[in-house]
């Protein structure tokens, strides 16, 4: 019996996840996505009270949800 995750020859989705989680695993014909995380570079920071209010002191990480008019077409 093989230990660990084996992708080639006898690919069986149920080997990849704990059976009690029941996560649907897609077959090997589906390519995995490529993820990336750019390295943060220290620039300006918000002063402490502004940072607390915004939820981060780093302007590059501040992405508030802004309510915009929903565009139906396009």
């Amino acid at each position, binding site marked *: 019996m093989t230990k660990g995750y084996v992708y080639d020859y006898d690919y069986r989705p149920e080997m990849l996840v704990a059976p009690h989680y029941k996560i649907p695993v897609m077959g090997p014909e589906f390519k995995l996505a490529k993820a990336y995380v750019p390295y*943060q570079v*220290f620039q300006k*920071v918000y002063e*402490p*009270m502004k*940072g*607390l209010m915004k939820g*981060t*002191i*780093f302007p590059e990480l501040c992405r508030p949800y802004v309510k915009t008019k929903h565009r139906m077409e396009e």
Partner: protein
Amino acid sequence: MDIGRERLELLKEIMAIDFSLVELNLYLDTHPLDQRAQRLQNEYVTICKDLKEKYEEDYAPLTHVYASECPWGWIEEPWPWEINYEMGGI
């Protein structure tokens, strides 16, 4: 509970600088050689210490690590959730 405007302002300043220090902590964990961030962290540590010292001297203990007069000051003060943060301050 109303703890007074000046005390609340100081408390909020402490909360803000504590938050900035957590942010810098996380940044420095992944950028341990960043001198600018380190300088800011060090500057904030000093400010934070001073603010907390002043708060504990003027008002009340912030943690249980507190040399108190009798009676024990910790239980005399409002719990964090009893403070009305809306009444003023920054």
